């Protein structure tokens, strides 16, 4: 395990460095100025210059970059230009919202994905199977924001059952929090669940062609047990890779979903920091997202190894 991490370390570091450079440069290439966000569009040029000076935006780009990295290595993410608060505080205050959303979406994605996947791999009846396939394809073809809009139209406007905007921390009020959470999480999870379902079904069907399934059948193993002990365990690999990849997309998808459902999570923070050119916040968010993606990938590799005795991580 340790050797596995050591082996991965150089490439993780390389990814981190490269993404830090991109995260630093890309927003700065965009025209606009964090000082304007502070001084306002009605400000005069002198006022703007004064604000820029106050924010320390007059150093060279190299200086700013190395300053940022240096502070980063010392655990200091800097201070938001727009909100004048430490970036770390800002991010941690938004973290709960996004984590709750992504976590519930992840759970929903896994549950729905597995149910659909197993169903479509086991159903014998051609019509039900075809119907399930159509449902799956539609889910696949409907991105989270459309699902979100349709859910709002349906459950927020036509039949106002669930709140469609705002949020409530799960820790503060679990019942209400869940009510706020369920629609956005569902919207976010559905298309990804369809992907997971499809991959799982494909994997199950291909495992079905393996000899050991025949042997199990020849042993007299009944279908339920066959699915659990033989088919599913051997098909989890691709599903987990998919879940890993999708988990990253959940975070990306959260941006639009948060906008639609008026949730104040990291996605909204990212969008507003783009709008305000709040570089330091944006940099931290991008870097964090890339590292999380890398982490998820490592995690799914580890999970696959844990599930499959043939793969050993030392190798």
């Amino acid at each position, binding site marked *: 395990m340790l050797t596995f991490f050591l*082996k991965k370390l150089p490439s993780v570091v390389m990814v981190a460095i490269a993404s830090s450079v991109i995260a630093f440069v890309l927003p700065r290439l965009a025209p606009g100025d964090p000082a304007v966000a502070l001084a306002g569009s009605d400000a005069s040029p002198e006022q703007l210059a004064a604000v820029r000076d106050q924010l320390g935006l007059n150093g060279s780009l190299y200086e700013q970059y190395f300053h940022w990295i240096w502070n980063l290595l010392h655990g200091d993410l800097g201070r938001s230009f727009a909100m004048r608060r430490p970036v770390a505080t800002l991010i941690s205050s938004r973290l709960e919202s996004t984590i709750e959303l992504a976590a519930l979406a992840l759970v929903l994605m896994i549950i729905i994905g597995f149910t659909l996947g197993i169903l479509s791999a086991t159903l014998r009846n051609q019509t039900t199977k075809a119907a399930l396939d159509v449902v799956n394809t539609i889910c696949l073809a409907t991105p989270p924001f459309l699902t979100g809009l349709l859910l709002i139209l349906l459950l927020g406007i036509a039949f106002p059952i669930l709140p469609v905007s705002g949020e409530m921390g799960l820790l503060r009020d679990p019942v209400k929090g869940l009510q706020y959470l369920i629609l956005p999480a569902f919207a976010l999870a559905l298309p990804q669940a369809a992907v997971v379902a499809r991959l799982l079904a494909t994997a199950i069907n291909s495992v079905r062609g393996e000899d*050991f399934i*025949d042997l199990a059948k*020849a*042993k*007299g*193993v009944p279908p339920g047990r066959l699915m659990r*002990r033989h088919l599913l*365990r*051997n098909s989890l690999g691709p599903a987990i890779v998919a879940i890993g990849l999708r988990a990253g997309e959940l975070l990306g998808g959260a941006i639009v979903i948060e906008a639609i459902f008026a949730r104040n999570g990291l996605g909204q923070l990212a969008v507003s920091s783009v709008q305000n050119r709040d570089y330091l916040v944006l940099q931290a968010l991008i870097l964090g997202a890339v590292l999380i993606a890398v982490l998820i990938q490592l995690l799914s590799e580890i999970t696959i190894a844990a599930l499959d005795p043939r793969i050993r991580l030392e190798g």
Partner: protein
Amino acid sequence: MTDIAVQSVAPLLNVEGLSASFAGRHATIRIIDNVSFEVKPRRVLGIVGESGSGKSVTVRSILDMLRNPGRVDSGTVMFNGRDLVGLPEAEMRKIRGKRIAMVFQDPQAALNPVMTVGEQIAEALVVHGASRAAARERAFELLRQVGIPDVERNFDQYPHQFSGGMRQRVVIAIALANKPSLLIADEPTTALDVTIQAQILRLLCDLKDELGLSIIMITHDMGVVAELCDDLVVMYGGRVVERGTVADVFSAPRHPYTAALLHSVPRIDSNTGSQLRAIPGSPPTPARLPSGCAFHPRCRFAVERCRSEVPRLEELAPAHSAACWVSAADRMSVPPEEEGLVRKARRTLSANPILQIEDLRTDVNRGSGSFFSKAKPIFAVDGISLEIRPGETLGLVGESGCGKSTLSRTIVGISPVAGGKITVAGRDVSAMNPEDRDTIVRTIQYVFQDPFASLNPRRSIAQSLGEALGVAGVNGEKARERSVELLLRVGLNEDFLERYPYELSGGQRQRVGIARALATEPKLLICDEPVSALDVSIQAQIINLLEELRDELGLAYLFIAHDLSVVRHISDNVAVMYLGKIVEMGTAEQVYGSPQHPYTAALISSTPEPALDARQEKIVLAGDMPSPANPPSGCRFRTRCPIGPAYFPEREICSTSSPNLKETATGQKAACHFAGTPIKAGTRDEAGNG
């Protein structure tokens, strides 16, 4: 069909008129047609036939285990007085694994990779109602019974930690778990080495006697039939073409196909001076089954009636039936074939070796290390020296994984040289710089094992050949002419140029593979198991082709195979390889006639012979070949050696010093401290832990 009823004993299983088909996209294809046979208690029924003849489909139909979209169309399968055809799935499950058990071909694939071996055996009992504890107890017992050592530890191992032979033992243990009365073994040894095959066959034999089993044994190897079976069913194109006791069929085959099958394989003691008797053409595919007798296009006796009418299976001798119009008409066994054509005299060219290898080593683990640590070297080829002269064939034999392919890949520069020297056409090419590679390409070409994998499915034959000719500097219209020449050379014709590999049979592809290798006009062909993926009838065609090419073009061959009979047939000299080293080397006559190394002797003895008189005690090697990652000290063979320290503890020298390849009394070279010591046949067959 009353022929078999004469026999007194009631059959355990009676298959009558069984037909099955697969629903394709456009049409439903009949795969087996009107198959009938019976299995009597405590007897072994062999089913033989070439690939695709419907053997597996037949036995799967019995247990209603056809893969999608297969379906049994008609017929009855009486088992213990009950018709299994149309039995509800829940009822069928009670029979599967409980009354009738199956063993599959590929032990690598037949075990669930994510369940421990013990669990998988216990599961067979649990699903038929045993308690967990009882199942576990019995599983231990079974593992012992099939000869798995160190059961306590191995019970919790995963399949990938087992060698192929051990896995097949586990599969057999699973099959025996519920003490079934019938065991169906679908080519249980095809994927295994001869040494392991001998172990498994011995095990099956013992179990049969011990447990009073009946066995259906599917195989395509007449040698295995001769060794194990009592009765025989021969299938061709989804139909039974001959049926009878093994003794009857072998002594007087009534169907031309059976006769051809018996004669197309080289015999280990055969006269190497003659061509093999190949069956022309290739086996039919069920979608395009020839009309009438499916064998007629390949049959040298075919008459007009064979083309139009399907022959019925008729009892032509007591308890011996065949489906052939010709033999039915004359009620005779198939006449012996005319002698094989005697080959032309061989041209022996200059005495300078075309390929010379000295002390070659190859590390197959190179480059797989991490950023921080170099990987431990694994020498799959560890100090090999040999030489090949023009026009000469060196046969290289050894078990799977002993490093044969690695050696050949190193010679042509695919695997890097870790040590030693390779000299090609007088030039030291060990450095493998561009000029060296150029020399190699001009001198040596490669023929691959798997004809299905060695041609790019997206490129037409013309393109594949063109590529090779392009390297030799032949392009354009010239290349086309030359391609046609090459195709003709390997027994194909111009029509094949525009075809794609999927339109070719295995034998045809292998011919194309050989044509491609000939494009650069090499002096030496390395043939890495060129026939082991082919049906016996095709195998004979290819061997004949190779011999013919050698004689006409003066080619030299490095002929790699694990089939000793084939190697004997084609080779002038033979080298026997074990775990990266050559243990014996000499002329074919020397090595086969009086093997000096115990390993060679065991290999020869393990090879099943398709003749009844050959039934004699075998030398069955215990255990598996160790991994090249940590070879045993001293003599690498000592862990399995029937004359080594495992049986004769006083022979310590084997564990301490590695024997060198040195000349023996009979003229060949052998690497054994006790070369030439006679071996007692039938050593214990418990597997050593691999």
